[in-house]
Structure formats: structure tokens, C-alpha cells
């Protein structure tokens, strides 16, 4: 899951300052996504009657599936956003 190498590879002209900034932004994004993921999957999967402190098997499988679906959704929407962005930019270029 490390995206660290990507920023540098696509634009080799980045200065080290910019690279550090890119890394910081990336970390922010990932932390944000993680927090949202934990929030959403906790609401959906974990029952509110706290009789025991450990996770049950049902909750564990639910969490696994929730995370998998979240990431898939994220990726799919990201792809769609990219397509949308391309359409907009290409539409803007046409006279």
C-alpha cells in the first residue's frame, strides 16, 4: 500500500521540498481515509450491546468485508473521477 514512490516517478523535476510536501499530503490522505473507514465499518458491523470486549467471529468477517468493499468503492470512484476530469479537460480544450 505504499504510494511513496509514485510521486517521484511521474515528475522527476520535483525538488526535495516538494517531495516532502507530497509525502505529507499523501500521509494526510491515508490517515483521513483510515479514519473514515474505521468510523463507517464500526457503525455498520459492530453491535452496540457491549457484553464482551473482544471481537466476535461474525464481526470480524463483517469488518473484513466492509474494508474490502470500502477500498473497492474508493478505487472505482477514483477511476470514475479521473474519467470525469479527463472529459472536462478535453471539453475545455475544444474550441
Amino acid at each position: 500500500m505504499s504510494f511513496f514512490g509514485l510521486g517521484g516517478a511521474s515528475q522527476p523535476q520535483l525538488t526535495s521540498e516538494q517531495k516532502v510536501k507530497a509525502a505529507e499530503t499523501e500521509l494526510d490522505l491515508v490517515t483521513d481515509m483510515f479514519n473514515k473507514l474505521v468510523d463507517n465499518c464500526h457503525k455498520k458491523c459492530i453491535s452496540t450491546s457491549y457484553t464482551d470486549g473482544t471481537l466476535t467471529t461474525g464481526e470480524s468477517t463483517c469488518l473484513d468485508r466492509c474494508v474490502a468493499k470500502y477500498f473497492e468503492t474508493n478505487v472505482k470512484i477514483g477511476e470514475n473521477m479521473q474519467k470525469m476530469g479527463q472529459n472536462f479537460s478535453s471539453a475545455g480544450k475544444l474550441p
Partner: protein
Amino acid sequence: MPTSSTPPKGSKGFANSMLKTLGLPAFKLPSRNWMLFWTVLTASLSGVAYDKYEQRKIIDYYTGKVKPLSQKPLDTNKLPRKITVFIAPPPNDYLDSSMKIWRRYVKPILHYSGVDYELIEEENQGVIRTTVANHLRALRKELQSSNNEEDTILFDEKSAQPVSTDNGQEFKRRFDYRDVMGIFHTHQKPKEIISEDSSISDSKLSGGVICLGRGAYKEYITGLHEGLLGPLEAPVEEQLSSTVMEGTALTGPLRSSNDQENILEADTLTIADSAVDNMTAEDKLVGTNISGEATIKEEVDEKTAEQNSKVLKPFISPSEYGAAEFPFPELEMHNTNIRETKNAVPILLHQPVLMIPTPNLLGFLTIPQRIIRFYERRKYCAFVCSQTYGMVKQDTIRPFADPQDLDLGKEEEEDWPRTWVKQGLERKSEWTRELQSDKRVTKFMYIYDRKDNEYDNSK
């Protein structure tokens, strides 16, 4: 004039005298035809309603029995038991028919028990066999290569530590966001994720396989044999005659596909040969195509290309089972089991199999029988649910009995349309062949065999 037959004031028509003899107030019954209509309607609808109500009760009963299993605690570095489900469509019908059985009767029980499952479906014959065989062949290749390779690590003579020659690539590879996000400040970061299936000593209690449909079962068994006894590379054939699967729909109902010809891995054919084959296939398809439009031809090309990769010609035929060598001699000698390389779970061979027949009648003349079956669906529901429950509970596992257990679910074949079976026999398609096994493989297999039905016993 008898007073009982006279209608009461304010109503027209003839009042039934029987009602007076029964002591009920005289009211006007509808005519004979209407009575017939309402009787038939209420009888049929109440039959459906009762059947649905009973099905609901059965499913709720079994899911209720299984829910305590999902309340057991599970560590955060553990993965629960994983069941592999193979679903095949009934002949001449769509995958949806089998998926309905899966979704209504099997899936709720697996879901409420907290067990993880993986679904492998197929639309055409041969996909399940190819998947299973490919998986086993890949595993054999990995085990072979891990036996052969030698690890060479550069050692620095002074510090006696491995020397890294990359420019931070190792750091990039090892980088984990979890180290910098501060998640593991109370708990230890889990070293590795362990599957529950891998830590059970008795391999027959790990995982499980469900084959939904006789076709899926046959393909699973042949896939197991092909993957274990067959060669690791596809046998190189001479010029393949790419006969067209005219009857096989690429989408739509499952026909008896002619998978013997026309499908082979790309690397065993030269590019020129494959181009020639594709050309002839294309031409033939255009010839037989009713509309013959260019767009349809392109779509068909794409789909055949997709299909070619999913269904492979068997690497070994059942007659060659005896001559092939069993790849894991250590299984014979010691009481061990072969495990997957990724998560140390015993391979599919060791996991017990549950075969669920999917009866599916088609046709016009069978409509009376189909109506009866429609009103008796609760019995099939009780059967499927109890079998799945038995699989989840894992209390009725027995070794595979070689000739008899190959006929598991054979009653489903009586439902198969006769013309489809005849076509299949002519084309020598997989599902119509007799299932053949090799004792060296089947002696390691197990079956879930549950005879009694708790729901019926609890009533």
C-alpha cells in the same frame, strides 16, 4: 311455497336452503362458476403462502441454531474458517437458477455462522475444472521451485549483515503506513495474519467445499484429479481443428459445450497458427450467424477470447490417471497434509466436500410435475438447510467411499433434458461423461454426510 327458499327482503336471487338447515342466517352465495373460481384461487394462493411461511420458518430455525457460532471471540490477527463454494448452472438453464438456491438456502446459514466463503461460479462448462486444476498446478510449481531454489544473500564481511545495493528501494518496499499513523500505540502490531484453518491439527476440520449442482461436483472431482495427476504444462497438440461451438451460447443458457476442441493456451500455438485458427473460427461464425453483422462478429470475438482463457482443455484424460504419478509421495508415507504456500491452509483435497443437488425440471410436458415441486419447495429447503448446517457444525464427516460417492446427487441427472444429454454425449462434453476417479487421490478426500433433519425432528 316453502319459506326457506324465499330470498330475504331487499336482496335478489335464490338463497341456499342448506344454510338454513345448518342454522346459519340465509345469505346469498355466489354462482357455481364464481364459487369454483374463488376456490381454485384461494387454494393455490394459500398453498404458496403456506409453503413460503414454512420455508421462512425453516431458514430462521437453522440460522438461529447457527448464530451462537458467530458470537465466539476471534483475535485480530486471525482469519475465520473459509468455505469454497462452486456453483454451476443447471443444464439448458441460466446461472440464476442455481444462484437462487445459493442465496435463499445456503448463504444465510453460512453468513450467520460467521464463516467466510468464496464463490466460484461458471456460466459455461469447464470453468470450475480449469480453476481448480490451475490452482493445484500453480501450487505444485511453487512447491517444486521452492525445493530447488537456493537463497543467496550478499553478506558484508565486516559487519556480517546483508548488504543492500539499492537506493532506498528496500525501505520503500518495507514501508508501512501503519508505522507512522500511530495505530499500534496500545496493541502490538500483528506480525502476520494467521488463518484459523491453518492452526487446526485435523485437516478435515479445516475449510470446506460446497458443490452446488451435479455439474459442479463432476467438474470439481475432475479438476482435482487433473490438477494433481496431470502434467504441469499443457500437452502440445498438433494442428488443432477449431471446430465451432455452434450450439454453445456464449451468454445465455448453458449448452453442452464442445470444450475439447478450439480452446488451448496461447503459448502452445504459434502466432501464425492461432491467427489461422481465429480466422477460420470467425468465418464460420459469420457464416452461421443469422444477422451476420460486423458488430456482432466483434463482440463474439471478444467473448471467445475471454472464454478461451477461462476454460482449458484437460491436461490429462481419465484413462491416463493410472499411468500418472502422484505428486506428493509424502502423503502416503506420513500422516501429513499439503498446505497452501500463502496461508498454510490444507489444500482443497483435504477439505471435506458437500454436494447439494439442484433439481431443475424444464419443459412443457413436465409442467404438472413442476407445479407439484413448486408447492413442495419447503422440503427441498429443509434438506439443503440441514446439509449446510451439518457442514457448519462439522459433526458428520466421513471418508470418501470411492465408487459410491462418485454418484452423489445422481438423481439430479434424471432432471436433465434428454435432448441436451444426447447432444452432450455426441459431443463428449464433460457433464455427460461418467465420473472416473483414482484411488490415490480419493483416499484423502472426505464428505459431509448428514442423514437426519433437525427441523423435522424438532416438530
